[in-house]
């Protein structure tokens, strides 16, 4: 049990909570990378996938991109971007954004395409324009899946932002790579626990957000979508195999 007590000592050492390399600052850096990457990915992926879903174009790519994304090795992507673009935060961001886009695209596209044809036709029959159908009918109905996609991406980004520290940047990965280099297993394990906790918090917090903003009438669908998000896992596809 000595390891556990040393780990506890690491967590309770006031020095580890102070200054620019303390736990609060590292956590804040990690959150900043993650929020920035997820937002940029959403800004790129949402308009494209809403357009594709609304018009029904590009389905083959939109549905399969999440599967392709799953096969992309994140470590290779980040190091490759670093070699091409040099040592700054841009390669890290590019890699994180690239990994975050596929789940958003696939889930959003499937969410919009899954809107009942009759519902869409009824909206058209009531005289709604294409824009109105998209914003007032399709997006609200697809919201559970859109949120599931964003959640999958966000959790994946939080996980992968750890690698920023491999390129000498900050974030919670610092503790991992410094601990690894120094064979300091308390620091290593402490960092790993913090990253695991941040991922789980992200997952549950976004699940709460989803529960709050999804229209009540869709609550039941929402439950199904939550299961889908789980099933789709890291690089999620909403309508995976099952």
């Amino acid at each position: 049990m000595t390891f556990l007590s040393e780990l506890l000592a690491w967590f309770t050492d006031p020095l580890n909570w102070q200054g620019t390399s303390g736990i609060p600052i590292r956590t804040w850096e990690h959150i900043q990378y993650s929020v920035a990457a997820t937002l940029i990915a959403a800004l790129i992926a949402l308009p494209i996938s809403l357009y594709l879903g609304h018009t029904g174009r590009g389905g083959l790519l939109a549905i399969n991109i999440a599967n392709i994304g799953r096969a992309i090795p994140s470590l290779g992507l980040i190091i490759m971007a670093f070699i091409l673009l040099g040592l700054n935060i841009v390669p890290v961001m590019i890699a994180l954004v690239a990994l975050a886009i596929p789940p958003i695209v696939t889930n959003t596209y499937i969410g919009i395409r899954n809107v009942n044809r009759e519902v869409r036709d009824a909206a058209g029959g009531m005289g709604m324009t294409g824009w109105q159908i998209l914003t007032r009918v399709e997006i609200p109905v697809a919201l559970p899946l859109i949120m599931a996609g964003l959640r999958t991406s966000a959790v994946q980004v939080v996980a992968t932002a750890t690698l920023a520290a491999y390129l000498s940047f900050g974030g919670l990965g610092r503790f991992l790579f410094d601990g690894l280099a120094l064979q300091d297993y308390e620091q290593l394990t402490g960092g790993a626990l913090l990253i695991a906790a941040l991922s789980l918090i992200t997952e549950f917090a976004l699940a709460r957000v989803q529960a709050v903003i999804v229209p009540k009438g869709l609550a039941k669908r929402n439950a199904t979508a939550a299961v889908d998000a789980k099933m789709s896992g890291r690089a999620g596809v909403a309508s995976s195999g099952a």
Partner: protein
Amino acid sequence: MDWGWVQDHLDEIQSLFFQHAQFTLLALVYGFAIAFPLALAATRWPRLYTPILGLTGILFTIPSIALFMLMMPFTGPTATTCLIALTIYTLLVLVRNTVEGLRGVPREVREAAEAMGYRRFKQLFRVELPIALPVIIAGIRIAVVTTIGLVTITALIGFGGLGALFIDGFRQAFGTPIIVGFTLSVLFAVVADVALVGAQRMLTPWARGAGGR
């Protein structure tokens, strides 16, 4: 892209690929050995399903890098560390798809099998599992592709299969090994995925016409 480097390192690339394939295969075999009984239990006693899914789901949400590192104080930078973590990541998909597949067996089919006098185990293996196979294989496909990607992360603790080439390239600030590792790793995933689709078509000839998923 420096083809001379590729020529000089063919042996190394080959052995890294074998390590990659070995890790993937072992993780899948161990994963299935754990997931299959869990899935049968969850099908037999539905109450177990939510806790099993919840637990494997939480394990799945823990970032792979963090999980590898969490094992380090106990098993050190060894292949065991890699395999335990890789196996854990296959569980969620395998359990879920096996349970969903078995649950999807139509009630009439089950009743017909019972009426024909099938015993529980024989019914499971002769009737229910074959019908559930497309969904189970869909799960295996996701697990295989995910695992092939995750193996590269183990490069951080000295393994990595083709991912070791990323670290090589990083240390020398040299792009070729990274491109080679990246391309082969993605290619491996795609080929494995296509091979599994082929295996499914062979194993479930009856599902072909119906566009078996």
